[in-house]
């Protein structure tokens, strides 16, 4: 059945695992089983949260990943970190010049790799253990990886607090004594503690107030420059993603529908979904807002348990062609200039 076909793999985005590739995702899938029955759990279907993604992340870059709720962007982040074990696919990570597959790693090997890959979470209220002091929260990764212990660890914690712009005097306080922005800084310090190469930022600013968001974005940018970090920046905020990313991937219903350089993506979006998404974002300028043409999409995002056949976007697409888009799965292909798009109606060379 056509609807069962996941996103076809293009060769890959960007140069195929060239030397500057840090993370390489190949055919990544994550299905969550739907079961019925109380005692005997029958497997009646799958929520195809992520359905066959392939992309590379280069060392030192920020790859922005945007999409609406339920598109699978957060699941992708968690699947890369193996917090959700992928259903299929490879997550290759450069370790001592070699690409190792995190999906195949288990137990102690995987736990040790976590030192290299860290995560910053969306909700700074929920992601810090309320019964641990800030010092213990930040020191924990140091201790579990056997890097520093006791007094040395506490010294490093104070140094990290300073790096993220907090007073080192705060070590013995509990998370509830801080504001949202400060807590997010604590989360950043925890991620930085073990000197990782790669950080998955899962909606790190969504729960924060407008004036605080900018503080955290600037902090992330400063740290990237200072420690040569690579980010996967997951967000639904297209303006923030434009600001912070080098390249941007747009997700829809478990697929990446478009992937390109930041400027290319925002100046010349090719996929109809990207176009609609960009046109829907309000711009804080009444003069511009008055003149803008909005593409208002009709309807809601279909359920990832029963994704539409053919192109997954065709049910809402303003330019979908009957007999093509609702039947045939579009290839995710390079249309020039390393501009990747999964749409039948975008001609080759459009990039």
């Amino acid at each position, binding site marked *: 059945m056509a609807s069962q076909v996941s996103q076809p793999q293009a060769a890959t985005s960007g140069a195929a695992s060239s030397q500057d590739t840090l993370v390489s995702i190949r055919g990544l899938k994550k299905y969550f089983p739907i079961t019925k029955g109380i005692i005997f759990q029958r497997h009646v279907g799958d929520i195809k949260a992520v359905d066959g993604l392939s992309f590379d992340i280069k060392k030192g870059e920020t790859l922005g990943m945007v999409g609406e709720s339920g598109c699978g962007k957060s699941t992708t982040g968690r699947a890369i970190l193996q917090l959700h074990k992928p259903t299929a696919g490879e997550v290759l990570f450069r370790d001592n010049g070699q690409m190792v597959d995190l999906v195949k790693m288990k137990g102690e090997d995987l736990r040790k790799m976590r030192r290299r890959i860290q995560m910053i979470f969306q909700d700074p209220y929920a992601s810090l253990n309320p019964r641990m002091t800030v010092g213990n929260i930040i020191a924990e990764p140091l201790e579990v990886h056997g890097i520093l212990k006791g007094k040395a660890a506490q010294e490093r914690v104070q140094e990290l607090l300073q790096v993220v712009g907090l007073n080192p005097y705060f070590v013995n306080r509990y998370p509830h004594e801080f504001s949202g922005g400060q807590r997010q800084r604590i989360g950043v310090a925890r991620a930085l503690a073990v000197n990782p190469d790669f950080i998955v930022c899962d909606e790190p600013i969504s729960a924060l107030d*407008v004036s605080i968001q900018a503080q955290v974005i600037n902090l992330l940018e400063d740290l990237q420059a200072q420690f040569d970090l690579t980010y996967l920046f997951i967000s639904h905020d297209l303006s923030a993603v434009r600001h912070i990313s080098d390249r941007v991937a747009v997700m829809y219903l478990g697929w990446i529908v478009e992937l390109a350089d930041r400027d290319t993506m925002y100046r010349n979006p090719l996929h109809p979904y990207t176009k609609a998404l960009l046109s829907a*974002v*309000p711009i*804080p300028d009444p003069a511009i807002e008055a003149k803008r043409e909005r593409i208002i999409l009709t309807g*809601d995002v279909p359920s990832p348990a029963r994704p539409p056949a053919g192109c997954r976007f065709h049910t809402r697409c303003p330019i979908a062609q009957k007999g093509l888009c609702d039947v045939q799965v579009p290839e995710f292909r390079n249309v020039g200039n390393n501009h990747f798009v999964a749409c039948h109606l975008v001609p080759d060379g459009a990039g």
Partner: protein
Amino acid sequence: MGTLLDVKNLNTRFYTQDGVVNAVNDVSFTLDEGETLAVVGESGSGKSVTMLSVMRLIASPPGRITSGEIMFDGRDLLKLDDDEIRQIRGNRIAMIFQDPMTSLNPVLTINQQISEVLQLHLGMDKAAAKRRAIELLEKVNIPEAARRVDDYPHQFSGGMRQRVMIAMMLAANPQLLIADEPTTALDVTISAQILDLVKRLKKEVGMAVIWITHDLGVVAGMADRVIVMYAGRIVEQAPVGELYASPRHPYALGLLKSIPRLDEIRKEKLEPIEGLPPDLINYPTGCPFAPRCPYAIQKCLEERPPLAPTTSTKHLSACWRWQDVKR
């Protein structure tokens, strides 16, 4: 056009174990018939509490409106008894919230909920009420309205629920709609649908709208006039074009400069507002924004600036140095 709502010196306090929270402080504003007023502010700015006060929906205890006057269509809402205010709520002033589920009853069908309003306030019979309910659902672009009218709230998606809420709110033909961050929990494309819908309905029905939000982008496309709140106080009030082109309060300016823009051309550093909002229990004596303000002088810490006219009588700012504040 006449004045629909006139709020004067509104003060709302919350009496908690840790002390008295000064949530709303000397807030005064007016709203004309058919006008769209946006109230912008961050969490803790008092924007929601101000509007809940207008609706007399402050939970007491711990909250209390300590002073002020809320004139709506010639009557002071603060002087009405509970029955009278209930008549006004839902009938003449409607409110929609961020999470529509909090105001929809999960065990009643949409028809039962909309019909209730129609039967109660407009005295319709059951059949007429159902016909009208379907009409209203069609008006807010719910597909297959005739069939879906008998569905329960949980059978609708988030965006559809917000539409149902709007349909319910329209049932009583209100003069004023207060929308408290109704699109914040929605995705961009869905949010665009709802904004589009409200704009259209506003024109059709001719109601006034107060739109509470933290999103300066939404404001730019929706509002006629904007109020910026900080620490429970109005710090700036201006026609929408003027506020964006030449803000006259450092906080409003700071907000505009701190947000990344979709149409940003060069990748520059964002300019965040450093520091944190003040403690509303130990309320500062001077300007509440002074500790974070790049324009602050000694006077700002000592004396609180009043909300006063600047370049025009329509553009107000609560800043001693409004003349120096420039984009």
